[in-house]
């Protein structure tokens, strides 16, 4: 066979993931000569030999675990008769478009190194290799090179340099490579500023609260079984009822507390190592204190993902509370100085180190819903992976600024869209500043400078103000339209599609507050085919913090006089002023907003049943209602699909066509629900039936809006409700309706920016 030569070009996540050593080893194995290098466009290979086809295909098939090849191309070139295969130096070119890898949990090989007393990396808290370690969070600029990361402070020692340069070593060209001698150092400091020895294991074991610097920022950490410590942390953090995330020693230990299915196990063990929301087991003894997640039936659990975490678990505890170290409504703390100052009075100890974080990044949170992982929060481990589209072309580089709450922005150019990490609620000034900081630095990482922008139609969003101040073309997008198109974009579909968009609130085209919408459309346009009937929300956002007031307003509006009078016992907890003002508000409409919000519907029922009467974190009332319903379901096993007997029957509701829109009317639903409650039916049963009813209504609305052919999009934060979403999926399956849901972005407002951007792209 005659010797030939080809050039191979790979683009995607192909740098900093061990790609060149992999090419080197495979070339050696197949007897191929030539060279490989990193360029601003990816990896380029010059290959000569007589096994070129096999070489090319095995390169693609057997690429390293963290690599993601986006494009692969090979062309025949002239033979240069190389005698060896070599890794040659990088070349810099214009218009770099290499993808940056997200951060990666410590790999098994590195863990073995850490456990081996004879190994150079024994118990070294910063060990990493081409298969694991920090990436995005330490990168200042591209190309991904040690000099452009926060590791530039740490010149490699000779031993590290040898590993780094050895193509047969796991640490070959691993940019953050370091050892005890040359690498970053941890320090344990107490609240008085005294230096202590160790990494705080004893302090945690004794109930101390420790601020620990991790990959993307600080955590506040304590022993999860220590009730006093957990309570103290909750008090000091002024956190209300918001659940704390946990880090578990192992999957095996976690199985004692929660149910873990195969999908969930896969997520927990994945290289992104996110927090996974898992259902608690119903057991009385030895379980974790309720204070970790009061009022809800789930726990958010993750596994150790840095060497330092693994070292912390040498202590006598199986679960650590690991909650993001941010003060209420403020961004994640990520520098030593800020931690030492802002967490004074919260943390007893500080476990810090001198490797800087450049991109602060919260832990990602996912839940398995309908056998698929759904993002509740997308950040560490996933950012800055792009969404790759072939059906959409972003001609002018664009910015989607995202929404007001749970913000993440999106930059896109050509066929790639990059969504930033979760940045919190933009009402907070410090969060808004973090938005600006990340917007500036994210542009460098993804190499996109936006020339135009997309923003929400809501006039009071902070980012609407920001958008209007920018001297570039801009386009405002209806909130729920963006939710719909976000999902279409993720599936790379462009044809008009029907979507059920259920969320809290979005500014509607008619000035009302939308939130339970049947939309038909795509990025070019949409039509509102139907919605939940408008109901009065007295006081707007202030009212939304008091689910009982919402219930009062809804029932007083929906119920006939006689039925209304019977509800009297439900309102004894409202104060005289509250009652009187609510009554007048409902009569005069003063400071009353008309809303079709799905979120407020769940809030109303939650308040009505006394599940949640005061909201201390976003979504609390609905989350607790879902918990009550799910717990009922767990304790009462039965077939959902049959819809027989009292428990399983949905409450009555009506879908009426008014002005050629399908309107969901819930008067009879609330009538029967309240009657049940006053007759003493359990909250769990009512909550469960309510979920089933809304699921049925969602599918009904879709069917009446002619979903027959083509898939149904489910989007909006309400589809982070597992019980509801799984019920909708089951009914859709029975009816043969194909469903499209978010898969790489959250269905809530974290996915908004991407949808905004695709819509603006059609117009601008």
């Amino acid at each position: 066979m005659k010797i030939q030569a080809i050039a191979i070009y790979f683009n995607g996540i192909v740098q900093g993931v061990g790609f060149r050593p992999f090419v080197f080893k495979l070339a050696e194995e197949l007897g191929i000569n030539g060279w490989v290098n990193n360029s601003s466009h990816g990896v380029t290979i010059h290959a000569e030999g007589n096994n070129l086809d096999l070489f090319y295909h095995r390169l693609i098939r057997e690429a390293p675990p963290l690599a993601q090849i986006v494009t692969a191309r090979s062309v025949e070139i002239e033979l240069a008769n190389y005698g060896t295969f070599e890794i040659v130096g990088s070349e810099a070119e214009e218009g770099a478009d290499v993808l940056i890898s997200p951060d990666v949990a410590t790999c098994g090989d590195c863990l073995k190194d850490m456990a081996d007393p004879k190994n150079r990396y024994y118990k070294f808290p910063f060990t990493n290799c081409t298969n694991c370690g920090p990436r995005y969070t330490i990168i200042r600029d591209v190309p991904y090179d040690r000099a452009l990361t926060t590791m530039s402070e740490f010149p490699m020692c000779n031993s590290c340099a040898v590993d780094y340069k050895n193509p047969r070593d796991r640490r070959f060209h691993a940019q953050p490579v370091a050892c005890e001698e040359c690498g970053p150092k941890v320090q344990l400091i107490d609240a008085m500023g005294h230096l202590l020895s160790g990494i705080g294991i004893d302090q945690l074991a004794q109930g101390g609260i420790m601020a620990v610097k991790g990959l993307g920022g600080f955590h506040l950490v304590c022993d999860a079984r220590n009730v006093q410590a957990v309570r103290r942390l909750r008090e000091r953090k002024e956190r209300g009822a918001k659940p704390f995330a946990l880090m578990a020693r192992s999957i095996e230990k976690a199985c004692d507390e929660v149910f873990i299915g195969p999908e969930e196990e896969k997520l927990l063990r994945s290289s992104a190592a996110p927090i996974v929301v898992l259902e608690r087991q119903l057991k009385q003894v030895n379980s974790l204190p309720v204070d970790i997640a009061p009022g809800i039936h789930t726990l958010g659990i993750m596994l150790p993902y840095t060497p330092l975490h693994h070292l912390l678990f040498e202590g006598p505890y199986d679960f650590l509370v690991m909650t993001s170290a941010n003060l209420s409504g403020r961004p994640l703390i990520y520098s030593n100085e800020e931690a030492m100052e802002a967490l004074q009075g919260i943390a007893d100890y500080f476990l810090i180190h001198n490797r800087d974080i450049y991109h602060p990044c919260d832990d990602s949170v996912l839940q398995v819903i309908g056998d698929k992982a759904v993002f509740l929060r997308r950040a560490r481990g996933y950012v800055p992976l792009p969404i790759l589209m072939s059906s959409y072309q972003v001609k002018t580089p664009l910015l989607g600024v995202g929404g007001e709450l749970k913000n993440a922005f999106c930059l896109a150019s050509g066929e790639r869209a990059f969504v930033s990490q979760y940045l919190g609620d933009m009402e907070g000034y410090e969060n808004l500043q973090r938005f600006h900081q990340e917007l500036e630095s994210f542009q460098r990482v993804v190499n996109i400078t936006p020339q135009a922008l997309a923003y929400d139609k809501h006039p009071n969003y902070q980012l609407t103000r920001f958008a209007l101040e920018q001297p570039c073309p801009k386009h405002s997008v209806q909130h729920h339209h963006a939710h719909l198109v976000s999902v279409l974009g993720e599936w790379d579909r462009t044809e008009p599609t029907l979507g059920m968009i259920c969320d809290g609130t979005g500014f509607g085209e008619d000035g009302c507050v939308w939130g339970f919408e049947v939309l038909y459309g795509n990025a070019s346009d949409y039509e509102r085919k139907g919605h939940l009937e408008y109901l009065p929300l007295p006081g707007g956002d202030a009212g939304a913090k008091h689910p009982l007031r919402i219930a009062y307003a809804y029932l007083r509006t929906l119920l006939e006089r006689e039925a209304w009078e019977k509800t009297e016992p439900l309102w004894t907890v409202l104060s005289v002023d509250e009652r009187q003002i609510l009554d007048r508000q409902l009569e005069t409409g003063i400071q009353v907003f008309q809303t079709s919000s799905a979120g407020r519907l769940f809030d109303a029922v939650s308040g009505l049943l006394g599940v949640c009467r005061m909201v201390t974190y976003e979504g609390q009332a609905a989350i607790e209602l879902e918990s009550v319903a799910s717990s009922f379901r767990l304790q009462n096993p039965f077939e959902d699909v049959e819809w027989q007997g009292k428990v399983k029957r949905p409450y009555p509701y009506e879908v009426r066509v008014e002005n050629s829109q399908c309107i969901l009317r819930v008067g009879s639903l609330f009538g029967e629900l309240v009657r049940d409650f006053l007759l003493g039916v359990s909250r769990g049963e009512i909550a469960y039936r309510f979920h089933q009813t809304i699921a049925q209504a969602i599918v009904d609305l879709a069917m009446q809006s002619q979903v027959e052919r083509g898939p149904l999009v489910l989007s909006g934060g309400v589809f982070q409700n597992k019980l509801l979403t799984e019920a909708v999926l089951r009914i859709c399956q029975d009816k043969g309706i194909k469903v499209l849901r978010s898969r790489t972005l959250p269905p809530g407002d974290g996915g908004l920016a991407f949808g905004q951007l695709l819509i603006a792209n059609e117009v601008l």
Partner: protein
Amino acid sequence: MERIMLAHGSGGRLSHELVRTLFQKYLGNPYLDQMNDASLLPGREQLAVTTDSFVVSPLFFRGGNIGKLAVCGTVNDLAVSGAIPKFLTLALILEEGLPMDELERVIESIAETATEAGVAIVCGDTKVVERGSADKIFINTTGIGYITDRLVGPEQIRPGDEILITGTIGDHGITILSEREGLEFQTPVVSDCAPLNGLIDAFYLPGVKCMRDPTRGGVATTLNELAGQAGVSMLLVEEQFPLSPSVEGACEMLGLEPLYLANEGKVLVIVAPEVAEEVLLNMQAHPLGRNAARIGQVQEGKFGLVLLETPLGGKRIVGMLEGEHLPRIC
């Protein structure tokens, strides 16, 4: 086509823009361009002049009526400009069919308040329009005062200055709203409507840099104007706002922010830090300033940014009043 909207009269951003882009554009002159509550005029006696129209509904409310308001509003604009109010003109537009005794009660109240403030009504005018062309009574007052040596104005403001308010905020706004809409509270809210020249005389010291009466648009809008004019930012501390429990409760129920509610008897004072404590004590010694408090501080910053520190310690931007506050919770 752009049309006049109700928001153009709300005292918020649109009002502000209307003044800037229309009135100031066509009518601007060195006196008007001072853009203060009263303009300082040249002449043998240094004069300050201001004018204001009053269209409040209902005419009578707890703590006052349109007549009292018409005197206080104009007197206060003079007083916060550092002038001593002396003379008022009074122009009335009356709706056909207005009960005469209502008019009389209003005029009585005007007289009483003028006496209290030490001003004389020196000329007047009355027009009556057809039923439906006006709402009962509209009043315009123009006030003239003598200029003092009090050097006040936004150009005096410097980073480090303290921000004081002479009492609880939002009382007038909630009173009018609740009377108009029939909202009832266990402890009724009363309008703070009062002439402030006496109070100002009582607390004023050199070192007081700027005074404003935060009427329509409230404290938030007034401070935004000042911060913009002075080229500074301001940081307010929510926990330090003096609030009557009824106003607090009403705001919490209605989803309103006290910072945006109208006041008719309060002065916002920017004062040098050295004298802040003494000015505050002076205020608190006066019957109209018992609940005076320090609510924030002037800071470095060219963007005219007004920030509010919330009870949990985070900050948020307090913009000008901008339409109604629509729900955002998603």
